[in-house]
């Protein structure tokens, strides 16, 4: 037996040696100590496109906004949101033109508006093989196989170079928007606005047979009428009649510069085979460059050493003759050298990793909310004690977006102009208790909507003196929702008594189109059925996948549905156009999913559209809102509040929902991070020890029984 003992004891010693106190659960391959000045975060689904002409979703902007620089950006700190120049040298000079393209003034009829844009000089692109020239020949522009031999990703190209940003690049990008091969989601919208965009589109679409080189040549050579290059740093855009919101478009990544070299580099067949495309490896002038793109695992942004530098804005910045002057110019952004975004599909790991300190900041899923924050009655939000103890900051902001339950106005039951249906809709609007919804499903991260327009946007009804009269009433100057009784007699008016149609005597059954993804679906649908039950309406929920849902919306076969809208730019127009009849989904394939149409509303909309944010405009909006609130084509849902938590070592965290390019402002205090992480993640070995003991017991039992068997006799 003794020889066994020896081995076991040795094993024990080795085993116990293995236990120590340094964290074992660091989810990065790098060692904790050299996480110097690196920002860690996560992304939930891999971005589909990183081509600025194409990408149109926040999870994609999270990356490209750091790399590409459009002409203008939102001021990081200022609320309400305000645009400031980014690569543009100053805010655009706006000239109004009449039908003969002669300059005119606001009080006359305006046919065209001209934006003259001046860009900064000496702005350089990131280093990129596309720019590398060898004796005046682009070295990588017609790659042969031995050049490609051991090239797997962009890093493998030996030579890189850069060049200065010119106005051509912007023009080229605008042309790309027109090219259907790039599937730009806004090419449709732009052809409404930019003068000559449409003709160019037709021209280019005819040229589908050209090979890519010729194509690029073609794009460069042919012009869009409305766009004119004035000089290397100056160009102008002419848009049809008047559209003040256009400036916001210019702040979106669609209008970032695109060097033609990049296009002609990435268009090469043999690169596409290796998944090296413009869609995956951006070329920009921004503070960061994408050095690792593995959307299955992680995306790594690195400091772009060609970046011209920018100063950290402050609230007492003022714009003197259209130039941003920062109060103190020492704070040159970006502060961090590197940002690592890891793919994190599952809720649980993401939240836990944040708590363990391996993510520097995190949005809160509604279900982590109890852990994170506590709501005091006055609506302002505090962190729970334990998170405070961890030194975690919370910053909140109401997103410029709205979630609503829409009625399909083409539907015979809930739709239509006649009062019967309207009463029904109003009743439902009363029945559905979005306060409860927010507290259950969003855990209070949101505020009940009075109208489509969210807070922070001009024309928002704060509920103090202007509010939704159909749903709320004032009781000693606090808003109170009208009760179910009201809803029921609205139903009576509509001709339904406790859920039965008076004419047919049949029970009233409504259908709700839901997209059945996510774990919460069941809970939500259940809740919704309860809401309708309150006024004895039976709700049938039809769960389908997203593109079935889309199809229904387009054919107008849906009846009731939930949808949301994120603002493209902070202007009421961008919300109210969701109810403009010319945007009807079924008729015009627009975004007006409930196919609402009201002559009055449309008229007011067209007037309101092109106005500046004046008193007059405010009134118009008020009137429009009263119209729709009475018709209630939507159940006014809620405007989500976005919370984000960040650890104590992350500095300069401001919530600004319009600005996407905020990474450059972030700042890391590495020492604190290192200490806290190692404090929070002490490994615990007790379980292993227990297992080990059990293992020993096994061994011994076997040995003992072997001996017993050896001694066995034949007798019973």
């Amino acid at each position, binding site marked *: 037996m003794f020889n066994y003992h020896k081995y076991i004891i040795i094993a024990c010693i080795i085993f116990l040696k293995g236990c120590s106190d340094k964290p074992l659960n660091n989810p990065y391959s790098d060692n904790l100590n050299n996480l110097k000045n690196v920002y860690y975060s996560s992304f939930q689904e891999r971005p589909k496109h990183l081509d600025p002409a194409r990408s149109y979703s926040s999870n994609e902007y999270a990356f490209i906004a750091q790399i590409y620089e459009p002409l203008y950006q939102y001021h990081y700190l200022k609320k309400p949101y305000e645009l400031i120049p980014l690569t543009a040298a100053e805010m655009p000079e706006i000239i109004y033109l009449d039908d003969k393209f002669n300059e005119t003034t606001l009080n006359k009829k305006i046919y065209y508006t001209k934006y003259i844009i001046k860009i900064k000089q000496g702005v350089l692109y990131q280093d990129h093989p596309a720019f590398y020239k060898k004796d005046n020949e682009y070295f990588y522009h017609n790659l042969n196989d031995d050049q490609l031999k051991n090239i797997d990703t962009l890093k493998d190209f030996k030579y890189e170079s850069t060049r200065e940003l010119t106005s051509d690049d912007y023009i080229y990008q605008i042309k790309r928007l027109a090219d259907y091969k790039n599937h730009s989601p806004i090419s449709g919208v732009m052809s409404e606005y930019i003068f000559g965009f449409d003709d160019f589109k037709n021209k280019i679409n005819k040229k589908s047979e050209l090979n890519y080189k010729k194509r690029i040549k073609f794009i460069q050579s042919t012009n869009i009428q409305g766009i004119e290059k004035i000089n290397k740093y100056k160009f102008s855009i002419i848009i049809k009649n008047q559209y003040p919101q256009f400036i916001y478009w210019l702040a979106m990544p669609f209008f970032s510069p695109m060097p033609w070299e990049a296009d002609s580099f990435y268009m090469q067949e043999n690169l596409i085979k290796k*998944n090296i495309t413009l869609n995956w490896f951006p070329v920009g002038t921004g503070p960061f460059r994408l050095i690792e793109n593995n959307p299955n695992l992680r995306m790594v942004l690195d400091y772009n050493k060609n970046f011209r530098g920018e100063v950290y804005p402050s609230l007492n910045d003022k714009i003197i003759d259209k130039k941003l002057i920062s109060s103190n110019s020492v704070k040159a952004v970006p502060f961090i050298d590197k940002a690592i975004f890891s793919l994190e*599909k599952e809720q649980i790991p993401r939240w836990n990793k944040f708590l363990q300190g391996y993510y520097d900041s995190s949005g809160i899923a509604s279900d982590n909310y109890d852990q994170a924050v506590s709501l005091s009655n006055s609506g302002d939000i505090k962190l729970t004690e334990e998170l405070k103890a961890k030194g975690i900051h919370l910053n909140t902001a109401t997103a410029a977006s709205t979630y609503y339950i829409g009625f399909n106005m083409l539907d015979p039951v809930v739709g239509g102009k006649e009062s019967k249906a309207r009463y029904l809709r109003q009743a439902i609007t009363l029945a559905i208790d979005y306060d409860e919804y927010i507290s259950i499903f969003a855990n209070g991260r949101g505020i009940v909507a009075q109208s489509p327009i969210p807070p922070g946007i001009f024309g928002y009804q704060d509920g103090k003196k202007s509010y939704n009269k159909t749903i709320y009433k004032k009781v000693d100057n606090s808003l109170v929702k009208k009760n179910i009784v009201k809803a029921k007699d609205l139903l009576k008016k509509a001709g339904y008594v406790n859920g039965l149609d008076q004419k047919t005597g049949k029970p009233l059954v409504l259908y709700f189109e839901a997209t059945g993804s996510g774990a919460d679906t069941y809970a939500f649908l259940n809740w919704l059925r309860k809401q309708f039950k309150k006024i004895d309406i039976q709700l049938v929920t039809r769960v389908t996948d997203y593109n079935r849902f889309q199809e229904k919306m387009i054919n107008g076969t849906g009846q009731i549905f939930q949808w949301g809208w994120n603002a493209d730019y902070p202007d009421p127009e961008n919300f109210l156009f969701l109810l403009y009849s010319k945007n009807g989904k079924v008729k015009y394939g627009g975004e007006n999913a409930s196919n609402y149409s009201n002559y009055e509303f449309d008229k007011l909309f067209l007037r309101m559209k092109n106005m500046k944010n004046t008193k007059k405009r405010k009134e118009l909006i008020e009137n429009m809102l009263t119209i729709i609130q009475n018709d209630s084509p939507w159940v006014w849902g809620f405007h989500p509040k976005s919370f984000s938590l960040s650890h104590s070592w992350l500095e300069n965290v401001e919530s600004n929902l319009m600005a996407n390019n905020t990474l450059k402002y972030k700042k890391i205090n590495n020492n604190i991070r290192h200490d806290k992480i190692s404090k929070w993640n002490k490994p615990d070995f007790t379980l292993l020890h227990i297992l080990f003991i059990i293992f020993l017991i096994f061994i011994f039992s076997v040995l003992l029984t072997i001996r017993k068997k050896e001694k066995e006799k034949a007798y019973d």
Partner: protein
Amino acid sequence: MIKYILKRLVYIIPILIGVNLLTFALFFVVNSPDEIARLHLGNKRVTQEQIYAWNEERGYNNPLFYNNSEKGLDAIQKTIFYEKSLKLFLFDFGVSDSGRDIKYDIQQRMWPSLAIALPSLIVGVLINITFALFFVFFRSTYVDYFGVIICVALMSISSLFYIIGGQYLISKLLHLVPISGYAHGYDAVKFLILPVIISVIYGIGSGTRWYRSLFLEEIEKDYVKTAKSKGLSESSVLFNHVFKNALIPILTGIVVILPLLFLGSLIVESFFGIPGLGSYTIDAIQSQDFAIVRAMVFLGTILYIVGLILTDISYTLVDPRVRLK
């Protein structure tokens, strides 16, 4: 031998054709290309012309089987069936609906899958065999009896519980390993420990039971009696005689799934955020990326059949009784 393998390889072809037709039917009956396009172009401001462009780019605008507009060979070749299904036979998986080259992705994602599957297989088999031998050693005693019941209990727990529980206990409470993530090279180890452990534990129940029954079956056999009558000890009978025989089904059982390891495991991978083919498939299913799913089905089929062939070969290697004709 060679002849046999060749014959089997020929035998694959009709099966592949069958599979191909089946999946093709499934996928192009289900959703019309327009819907796919709409799904992939995102949900804001999608116009009909974009959809058209998208379809054209991916060749979904062709007719399914026969193209009247073309003549000659093109009539066949300019069809979705030719483009999307037949080309698979040349391992030309084409471009995924989100625009990436599938073959490349598969090559990239294969290895992480293997990195989990292989260790879990090996460790699993070793552990199962140990336990099985342990029970066989205590056969027809209460140890064995309760051992079996415990196995059944382990079998009766859904894999999801193992994963969720494991993550919660090991990573969250004990801080022993990262909760999820992956890195290439040697750093991968710390990410693989937990998934491997979990998939091993998940396998223990059924595996141990199966091996146990194999061993018992062998122990009943006559040659065991012969061996004992030679005066061999219990253990040497167990290892030299029983084990050798029981190993045949075990080995071949392993061989058959060996190629399929490349496909990875769907649930584990997506829970632990490991960029393998398993999570690739799940994503494809959830985003209805048919190009990928088609490719995976095809790959799966081939690997499955390769597995079968390997099994036959492995039989000839481990079992002197079997000779291939």
